[in-house]
Structures are given as structure tokens and as C-alpha cells.
């Protein structure tokens, strides 16, 4: 019977639902994007390989309860002067550490025949391949120990596209960095699955760490140290040792040792925070939607005063009238929510098509939306329903 009344006032019902539709659609879409981001983050972190520890420059508080505000001096995060190559060598000596590589960033761009490409140029050691297993070569070879003093480069796919148009094989080609000629010895595979973060591999170019030093006024500019812990050791046992070792040379603790879990947790915290904040803002429209439902239900009760009187005359109890109007409000809200979810599928597929994020409307999000809709229907439908139920049949029948 409730559906009947909604169907009889199609246009009005739809407009009433609009608030709920927009609210549910936006909240569900945002939650889906958040979910997609989280999966993206965890995939990227896993791409690093397993049993990975990273030493970052700067003291970053990691763990629960720490706000973003206590990050310390943000400049230290990107400062390249804190971590030294000596640290790399000392960490290499720790038992259980399988591979260590400095990661230095070199600002600048590659040039070829007047074309310019500005990738992220990283100074790395060959052992990096044991640490970042996400590196895959499509052609050639990676930097080896014998390349230490050679001007060689392993380029990402972006450099190939930007400097060589669509040529597939560019091994042996020479490209210019500053005034130095580099030979291409390897090509990185383009990322197989698109990910918001995997584009890193596409824009990355690797040169030997010793060469990188030359372009940074002989400063090491180590931003991070990547460490692979031997699989027969527990990461949690090795981390304190690394920290201890580092403290010998850095008494001020101007560095941070993070594991994959720390990294994942940190990124997830940020994503969760963002998702919640944005979804909370979007849910304001749900309240607006609820007020819309209440408004139209109050109008409906007044309009249908005679109907209420008649229903009571033919034997409806006040309770039956209350239920009728309450169910009608919940039905409007729930129907709006259903349409909203459908729109969120549309929204997420647009996001999926236009960006690297793969949003996912989860079952729990749908159930949550349904619950919220029923809640909104009851909360905002109750007052009109009570008003309807309280109508005196005589007054109601006389109402013109």
C-alpha cells in the first residue's frame, strides 16, 4: 500500500528521494574510492618485495595515536644530508641483512635530439633488485657492480616514449644528462597493472649510485636506505639492531626505520582519515534528504487527512495508520538509497575508467547504506506518522 502511494506520486516521490540519492551515491562512491586506494596502497607496498626495511631521513613518529601534527621538522624528510654512505656500509654488516642499497635522488633531465624527459633519476646499487622486486626489465640488463664508474642508465618506459617516440628497442642509445653522455643498458617494463603509485616505475630511471654523486656536488644525497632482511630472519628482530647501529652515528635520532607493515599502516591511516572526512561531509546531504522526506510526508499527511479519517472509519487503528506512513517514509528513503547505490556503481566505473584507482563498492558499504536509509526513513518519518495517527477521525472526515 505504501508503494502504491509512492507510485501514484512518481515525480514528487523522486524529488523527495533526490537528497537521499545524492547522499548515498556520494558516500558510497567515496567509500569505494577509499577502498580502492587502500588496495592500491597495499599492492604497492607489497611490490617492494617481502622482508623489507627502509631507513628514512627525519624522525617520523610511526604508530597509533600519533597525529600528523607531530611529524617534527618537515624539511628533514626530504633532506639528503642526514643519511650517509657509511650507514649503508655499516648496516650491510649486520647479521640477517641480505642486501642494502642507498637510494639517492638526482634532480635533472635527459635530453636527446632536442627532446627532453624528466624522470625521477635515482642513484642505486645493483642490490636494489633484491629489495624492490617490483623492478622488471623488458630489455637489457640492470646496473651491475662493474658499472660503478660507467655512465650507464636503466630507463623507465616514460623516457623511452618521450625521447624515442614509439621505438621499442633503444638499448645502446646515448642520452645526455647535463653535459654527460649516458648509455642505455636496460629498459624497465611498463607496470602491468595500473596503479596510482606504480607509475613510479614508469617514470623512474636508475643510474649507478657512484655516478649519481657526481651530479650532486659529491654529496651523497641519500634520501632512503633500502634493506632486505634474509627470509630466515624475522624483520621485527632485525629492526632494533639496525636502529641501534644507526644510533652509533646519529645520536640525535634524525632518521626513522620503517617496515612494510609500518608503511602500510601509515598510508592506510591517511587514506582512512581522508575517506572518513570526505564521506562525513557528503553525508550531510543525507540529513538534507531526510528533512526533505519529513517535509513531503507532513504535506502528504495534511493532504490525505480525509483518507486517514476514512481508513479509521473502516477499522484502521491509530497504530495501523502510524505504520502506513512510517513504512512509506522508509520505502521512499530505501528506494532513494537503492538508486543512490546504482549511481555509485556508475560513479565508480567512471572513476575506474578515468583514473588509476580501482574503486570497489563493497557489500558492507551497501549494507551500511541500506541501514542508514532505514534509519533516515524512521527518524524523519516518525513525526509525520505520529501526526497522521493522532488525527481524530471526525475532524479528518470533515476536512475539506
Amino acid at each position, binding site marked *: 500500500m505504501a508503494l*502504491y502511494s509512492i507510485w501514484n506520486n512518481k515525480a514528487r516521490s523522486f524529488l523527495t528521494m533526490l537528497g537521499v540519492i545524492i547522499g548515498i551515491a556520494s558516500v558510497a562512491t567515496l567509500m569505494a574510492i577509499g577502498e580502492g586506494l587502500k588496495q592500491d596502497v597495499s599492492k604497492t607496498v607489497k611490490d617492494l618485495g617481502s622482508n623489507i626495511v627502509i631507513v628514512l631521513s627525519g624522525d617520523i613518529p610511526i604508530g597509533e595515536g600519533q597525529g600528523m601534527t607531530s611529524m617534527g621538522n618537515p624539511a628533514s624528510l626530504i633532506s639528503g644530508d642526514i643519511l650517509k654512505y657509511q650507514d649503508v656500509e655499516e648496516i650491510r654488516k649486520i647479521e640477517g641483512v641480505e642486501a642494502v642499497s642507498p637510494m639517492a635522488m638526482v634532480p635533472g633531465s635527459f635530453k636527446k635530439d632536442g627532446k627532453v624527459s624528466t624522470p625521477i633519476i635515482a642513484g642505486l646499487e645493483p642490490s636494489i633488485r633484491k629489495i624492490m622486486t617490483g623492478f622488471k626489465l623488458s630489455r637489457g640488463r640492470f646496473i651491475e657492480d662493474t658499472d660503478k664508474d660507467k655512465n650507464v642508465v636503466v630507463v623507465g618506459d616514460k623516457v623511452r616514449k618521450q625521447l624515442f617516440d614509439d621505438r621499442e628497442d633503444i638499448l645502446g642509445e646515448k642520452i645526455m644528462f647535463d653535459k654527460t653522455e649516458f648509455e642505455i643498458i636496460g629498459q624497465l617494463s611498463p607496470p602491468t597493472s595500473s596503479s596510482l603509485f606504480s607509475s613510479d616505475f614508469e617514470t623512474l630511471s636508475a643510474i649507478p649510485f657512484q655516478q649519481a654523486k657526481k651530479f650532486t656536488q659529491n654529496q651523497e644525497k641519500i634520501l632512503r636506505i633500502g634493506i632486505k632482511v634474509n627470509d630466515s630472519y624475522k624483520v621485527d628482530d632485525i629492526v632494533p639492531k639496525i636502529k641501534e647501529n644507526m644510533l652509533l652515528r646519529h645520536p640525535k635520532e634524525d632518521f626513522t626505520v620503517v617496515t612494510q607493515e609500518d608503511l602500510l599502516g601509515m598510508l592506510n591511516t591517511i587514506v582512512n582519515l581522508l575517506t572518513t572526512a570526505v564521506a562525513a561531509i557528503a553525508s550531510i546531504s543525507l540529513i538534507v534528504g531526510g528533512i526533505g522526506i519529513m517535509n513531503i510526508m507532513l504535506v502528504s499527511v495534511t493532504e490525505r487527512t480525509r*483518507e486517514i479519517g*476514512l*481508513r479509521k*472509519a*473502516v*477499522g484502521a487503528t*491509530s*497504530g495501523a495508520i502510524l505504520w502506513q506512513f512510517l513504512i512509506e517514509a522508509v520505502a521512499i528513503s530505501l528506494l532513494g538509497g537503492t538508486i543512490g547505490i546504482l549511481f555509485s556503481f556508475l560513479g565508480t566505473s567512471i572513476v575506474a575508467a578515468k583514473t588509476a584507482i580501482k574503486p570497489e563498492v563493497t557489500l558492507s558499504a551497501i549494507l551500511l547504506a541500506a541501514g542508514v536509509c532505514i534509519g533516515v526513513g524512521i527518524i524523519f518519518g516518525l513525526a509525520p506518522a505520529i501526526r497522521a495517527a493522532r488525527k481524530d477521525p471526525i475532524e479528518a*472526515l470533515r476536512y475539506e
Partner: protein
Amino acid sequence: MNLIKLQNVSKIYQHGKLEMVALKDITITVQKGQFLAIMGPSGSGKSTLMHIIGLLDRPTSGSYFLEGKEISLRTSDKVLARLRQEKFGFVFQTFNLLPRLRALDQVILPTIYARAKNRWQKAEKVLEKVGLKERINHCPSELSGGEQQRVAIARALVNSPEIILADEPTGNLDSKSGEEILKILIELNKEGKTVILVTHDPNLANQAERIIKLKDGRIV
């Protein structure tokens, strides 16, 4: 036993400090199977009396017995609703059909509240009885006034009540349709239903076996 007994029933409306007496010391009894007309000019309290009899309204003072059982102020809303379902069928001057429901659904409505079985069959049967078998799928806007009132009568009959309360049932109809409606009411009375007809039209009232005349809230 008296089907309905009213004893010194009064109804007073309060409008702020102003008191308006709608009914004053009404004492009547109605026997089962009677055809009773309540007559009086407008404002004489006849509709109020009908509403009190039909349990849509409660008297300010006095007592009301339905089949020997007293209906008091303490009688709950649920019980009153149940009694309205079982005992009374209402026919109004303005038909009071729901605008977008087809005739069949209008008639089914009371059976839903009564939780009756075989709703469709019951509704079809009473519609056939009032001569609307061919029009059960029509909405009120597609029916003439007389037909609408016949749907309303079918709706009043569907739960097989003992008492039909008709408030100026012919007031909005032309004389020919009005006669048809009256004929149906007389027919129902012959079948054993108690019919209480509220009207200001003496010609209509004269069809009843008993007439109660009201004026200014009192029986005259």
C-alpha cells in the same frame, strides 16, 4: 436485547471558553433489523449523533451500550477500531473514496484492516450485489456519482457488519441515483441489516420505519 442503547448522551464542544452543545440528553434504543431515520435541519447534531453511534466520536457524558456492552472512555482505540470493522459500515455524503484506487481495491481496504480471508472474492461479491460487477477496475474519476456511492456501500458491506450508518447518502446525487441508493438501503434492511439513515429530507426519512427528529441537539 437492544442492539444500541444511548442513555442521556451529551456532546459538548469546547472552543476556548465557549461551549457549544451539539447533543443534549439523548436517550434512544435501536433494535436489531430496524430502519431508523435521524432527521433534522443542519446543525441539529444529527451527524454528531451518527458519529457517536458509529464509535468515531465519544460522548462528553452519558453512556452507550452496544449489544449490551458499555462503551466507555476507557475503551481502547484498538477495541473501537475492531468494533468499527465488525459492526459498522459507513456511507458518507461525499463518498470518501480514495482518488486513485480502483473500485475493487476501495472495497478490499476494510478487509485488510480486519485481516479477513478471501478478500478478493468478498469484494467482488459485494460489488456484484450493488450492481457494479462490470466496473470493478474503474477509478472513482471514471464513475458517476451514483456509481461512486454504490462502491462506498459495497465497501461498507464487505466485512458483513450488522449496522449500516448512512450520513446523507443521497445528498450529492441527482434524484434518480438517489432513489437507487435508497432502494439498495431498503433492500439491505430487508435482508436483516440495521440501517440508520441521517437526512434532512422528509421524503427520504418517510421511507424508514422509525424517525427520530433532532433540533438543537435534542430529540423533539
